[in-house]
Structure formats: C-alpha cells, structure tokens
C-alpha cells in the first residue's frame, strides 16, 4: 500500500488536485478567525469549531473525487485492478485514503482557524478545538463515508457532486421537518448527522447513541460500497 500512497502523492502533486479546495479552506479559516477577532472568551474555541459545521462537509468531495471518483469515472481503476488482481486490497486502500485525507482536511481547517484566531487575538484555543474534533470525528467520519459511497455508486463525478451537496445542505433539514410534520416526533433528530455536528457537547459522555449510530452507518456504507465495488465492471 505504501507504493499506492507514493503514486497518489505524485499524481496529486502533478495534477495539483487539491489546490483549489485547500486554497478555499485556508481562506475560510482566516475569514472565520477574523470574524471572531473580538471574541477573547473561553468559549471561542467552541465557536470556531461550530462555524465550520455546515461548510466543512462540502470539502469532503475533494478526497472522495481524488481517490474514488476520478478513477472510477475515467476507468483508470482498471489499470490498478489488472496489476494487483486484488479488489479487496485496492478498495481498502482507496476507502482508507479517502477517510484519512478527509480527517486531515478537518484537522487542517479547525487548527488553522484556531491558529489564525491566535494571530488576531493572542488567545490560544487549541485544547478546546482538539476536544471538539475528537467528539465530532465519528460524525465527520460517517459523513465522509456517505460521500465516498456516493462517489463509488455513481458513474459520473458531477452526479456524485450534485447528490452529495444536496444531501449535505438539505437532507437533515427536510427530514427533520417532514418527520416532525407527519409523525409529530423528533425522535430521529439525534441521528441526523449533518445537524448533529453542531450539537456536539464535550462535557457529555463520548459514546452517545449518536456516536454509536455514526459508527454503525460508517460500517454499513463501507460494506455497501465494497459490495458495489467487488462486482462492478468499470467500462
């Protein structure tokens, strides 16, 4: 797998694949830090994390596109499948890399915001930010898995973009509204993951039902994506 990592690093560098999204990520980090430049309170760490909750999942399309979408759409996946003759190995690598690079994006966005805020105010909030990252990680991971699953499911990158962005921006709000109106309950609210990102509380227990459902769905998306990948003919 080390060879695959070396090869993909080379391709990312040569094709400058994540340049635009990284540029935007840095720009937003500085912007958010600037917006909170007057806030010197102890709670600023939480605010700096929460301001990202709607926007950050949209960046997950970049790793999913680099490691899954492009290869599946352009059929370049066939080259590696022929040489390796091992679909499980190829899938495991691509899935793990999508998640790992997504985690790096999360770390970069939130720590950079904290760093920029420190530059503006002199207040260091890294400890709070890291605690929030730890608590949000299962939720971000299930969202990243959903994104990767969508890229593994659709034949065209633009279809994957469209479906994921619509889900990321609208699904939880619509689902909450519909369930509330039809069934008169908000029992599903703790499991609407995009909404739950902003509900994380680091003063509560780590393993809540939300986290357990997030882990369960991460496994489910992974298994479903592999079942698709195992049988799929890329042509």
């Amino acid at each position, binding site marked *: 797998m080390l*060879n695959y990592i070396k*090869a993909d690093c080379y391709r990312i560098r040569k*094709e400058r694949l994540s340049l635009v999204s990284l540029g935007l990520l840095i720009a937003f980090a500085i912007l958010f830090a600037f917006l909170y430049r007057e806030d010197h309170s102890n709670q600023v760490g939480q605010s700096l994390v929460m301001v990202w909750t709607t926007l950050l999942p949209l960046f997950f399309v970049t790793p999913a596109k680099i490691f899954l979408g492009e290869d599946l759409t352009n059929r370049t996946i066939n*080259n590696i499948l*022929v040489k390796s*003759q091992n679909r499980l190995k190829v899938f495991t690598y691509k899935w793990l890399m999508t998640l790992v690079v997504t985690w790096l994006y999360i770390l970069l966005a939130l720590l950079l915001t904290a760093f920029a805020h420190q530059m503006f105010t002199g207040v260091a909030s890294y400890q709070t930010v890291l605690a929030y990252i730890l608590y949000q990680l299962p939720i971000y991971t299930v969202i990243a898995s959903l994104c990767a699953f969508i890229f593994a499911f659709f034949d065209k990158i633009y279809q994957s973009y469209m479906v994921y962005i619509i889900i990321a921006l609208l699904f939880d709000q619509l689902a909450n509204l519909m369930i509330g109106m039809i069934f008169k309950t908000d029992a599903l609210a703790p499991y609407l993951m995009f909404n739950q990102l902003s509900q994380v509380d680091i003063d509560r227990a780590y393993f809540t039902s939300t986290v357990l459902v997030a882990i369960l769905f991460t496994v489910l998306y992974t298994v479903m994506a592999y079942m698709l990948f195992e049988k799929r003919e890329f042509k």
Partner: protein
Amino acid sequence: MPNLLTIEHISKSYGKQKALDSVSFSIKKGEILGLVGQNGAGKTTLIRILSGLISKDSGSVKQAQNYKIGSIIEAPVLYPNMSAVDNLTYAALQIGIKEKEARIAEVLSLVGLSHVDKKKKVKDFSLGMRQRMAIALAILDFPDFLVLDEPVNGLDPSGIKEMREIIHNLRDNYGITVLISSHILSELELVVDRFIIMHKGRIIKDIEKSALSSQVEEKIVLSTLDNKLAQKALSDLGLEIIVQGNKLCLSPEKSVQELILYLLEQNIDITDIYHAGSSFEDYYLSLLD
C-alpha cells in the same frame, strides 16, 4: 512450448444472456493468439475475465506460473491531464518498479514515443499515440501475458503496421505472450500464430495459422448467362460446385481455359471467370454459416 495458462469450461451470463458458454482453450508461452468473433461473440467478456476485471460464473483458469499481466481493454485509460512520462511514473510508483526512469525510457522507445514533448499532456495526444501509451503502460513491468482488446481500432494504416511491429517485438525480444482480439481479420492474419474463433459465446474453431492455409483453398469463380444450366453441365464433369449469389465457385481441378472451352461447347455464355484464393475472411464467414 509449455502452456502459460489453461482455460477450462468458463461460463458467464448477464441476466438471461449467456456471454460465455463453457469456453476452454490453452495459451502457450510466447504465443501470439488471435481472438476473432462478431460483436457479442464474447471476446471482451473473455478478455475481462482473463484480466481479472470481472468474475466468471463457473470454470477455471489454471496458470502454469504466477504470471504478471498487462492489458488494454477497448480503449486506452490514462490520466488525461498528465504527460506520458507522468502517467508512466505514476504507474511505476504504484507497481513498485525500481529504476523508474530507465524503464520508462525503455518502454517509451519500444512503443515509439521517445520523441514526444515531455510536457505534452495525454489529452492532446492523437488516438494512435494514446494507443501506444496504453501499450507502454501495460508493458511497464514487462508482464508475462499481454491482453489487447481491439488494439488497432481507429488507427490509420501506418499506425496499424507500427502496432504489428510492436507486438512482434514484444514477443520476439521480451518473450511476452500476447492475446489479441480484433475485428480486422486481415490484420490479425499478419500478427498471430493461432486463431480462436468465437461465436455466440462459444469457441467454434481453434486453429494454428499454418493449418489455416490448408483450409483456405484456391477456387475458380464464374458466372454465366444461365447459371443453372452451367451448374448442371459442370456437375456432369464431376466437379463440386458451390453457389454464392450469382456466382459459381469450384475447386481448380480443371484450368480456366479448359472450363471456358467446355462451357462454350455446351453453348453456355460466360460473363465472368477468374481464379480466386479464398481468404481467412471467407473461411471465417463459412464457419459462421
């Protein structure tokens, strides 16, 4: 030559459609094998199974050794925004090839792309160049077995000739066993050692090129103003006649001159008569009939 692999009773269906029906054959080491068949005959399905890109429903592929494989299926698949060298470097890193630069230079030279501008992106390549790039990519680790699905599709005559030379070079100098599928029978005839002819998911003929020459016989083709009368007259001579449209085909037991004299004696007017060698194409079509 020992077998590189033996394929036994491979079957594959897509829903109710049977793409391969108990296909069996073997491929000898260092052989160039041609896979021939109409659209839907099952060639690409077979090639995809041999390349490990799809699974078979039943049957087995027995390998004499753990071989490395390279393949081009239908069209070249490359990263369009990278140059030839970048595409090859990416693949070399993926496979874990040491001394990448030397290997890349060697395969580029083999496929005749050493002269190409190193910064030129693959998306700006002509189809012929992309085909050659795909071959370079497939042979980067010098595989034991190379599978080429329609490698000359869309190439001009000089491109086809160059592709033929590349394939021969790979076999002769690198010992690579090659399986080629193509619709262009005349071209395959110049490249392969053996033909596997497929029809409706089955192998209908497995024949060495040397044996093929005895199957494709010379014949005399003639047409007259009254073919029925001519057929009867020629049958009286004991000749076996095959009717193909408005032409009569017969084996060259009598010379053209003898036939002309004989038919004139019978008051049958000849409109056309010539000596023809039947081609591989005729043989192939006769198998389908």
